């Protein structure tokens, strides 16, 4: 599927996506934030690795209340047999977006 960002040549404005990724303590969207990443499609900011010690929202629900729109949540997958005690990537990953007119 291909989508095109809305572009209003008449007004000289266009829409860009800001992405917020929250890693939560459980699969519940209102559980506490344990990790976070942000990507700014407007180019106005340049978030990067290790740039903050304080999460932008205490939970996924707090992000919703501030207008972020959830567009992807990690699936709940059972461990592979024989690997039940392995630890690897963070499991509870939630992608949010805001559309910003620039």
């Amino acid at each position: 599927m291909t989508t095109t960002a809305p572009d209003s040549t008449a007004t000289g404005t266009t829409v860009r996506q800001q992405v917020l990724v929250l890693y939560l303590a459980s699969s519940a969207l209102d559980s506490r934030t344990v990790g976070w990443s942000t990507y700014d499609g407007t180019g106005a900011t340049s978030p990067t690795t290790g740039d903050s010690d304080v999460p932008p929202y205490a939970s996924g629900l707090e992000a919703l209340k501030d207008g972020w729109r959830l567009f992807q949540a990690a699936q709940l997958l059972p461990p592979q047999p024989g690997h039940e005690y392995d630890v690897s990537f963070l499991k509870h990953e939630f992608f949010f977006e805001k559309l910003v007119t620039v």
Partner: protein
Amino acid sequence: MPHPHRKNLLTSVQMAHFVATGALRMDAVVPDEMNQQALDVLRAGVPAVPYGTPLSEAFVDSEFVQRLVQLPEVAGAIHSLVGPEPTVDHHAVHIRKANEGEAQNLHGDAIIDVREDAFDVQLMYYPQEVTLEMGGTLSVPGSHLRRTNESDTGRYQNLLGQTRLTCPAGTVVFLHHGIWHGGRRNDSAIDRYMFKIRFNPTVRQVRLWNLDDLYDEQVAAELGQTFPWYENATGRLEIYNRVKLWQKLTGDDTFDPDYWVTRVSNRPQRVISQRSLNPHAAKKVTA
């Protein structure tokens, strides 16, 4: 290399701290006089070392590095972690340029490495005072047992409770090979230097440290700690894997203070019920 004096070996509590966090920090352990020389030495470059060179032979052409690894506290830590005469995997001078504008992605070095009874360590030496603005190494306490491959973790920008290193000049940090880390963006006007050596053990890593405090309560406390970025459920698996590693390092498979391993390993084999009590057993018909 001579055997380090017992007083310079790590304690059991320090080893347990390393097993829990994946890191051991020694602030200002390198004397100022060496720190003053270090930048010139590192700028000039340290001669390359073939993979697998014994430590005692690796730096015959670098008097400065020999002195660094022979500092009593440093030598004691190396011995405690990887044993006598480890081999040098590789070394590197890392420079985060002033105002360079980019950070490294969060990563583990080399490739995915899932050894359960052995580990490499990386010595990281910071000859300058490192401020927050200078982009000191980011590392994630307790991430070293995660089974991930190199920069596949690059999506993670910040984790709660991460360590953004600030330290006095002359600090040495030892990191487990698996720890998630990365050089942060240097937003200062000062180039930041770090010298790294990766060591491979050549002996089984069993009871190589000072064992006087092996049964100190603080050992279990170190091994039982959790970190703010752990998810609720996976955090329990971290303790499980940590206990398994401590059992390997001590040769004591009974160590399990909170029963995480014992509970899920308990599969008794003794059968006490009589066959005759089995309701599905064929009934004997007596005449």
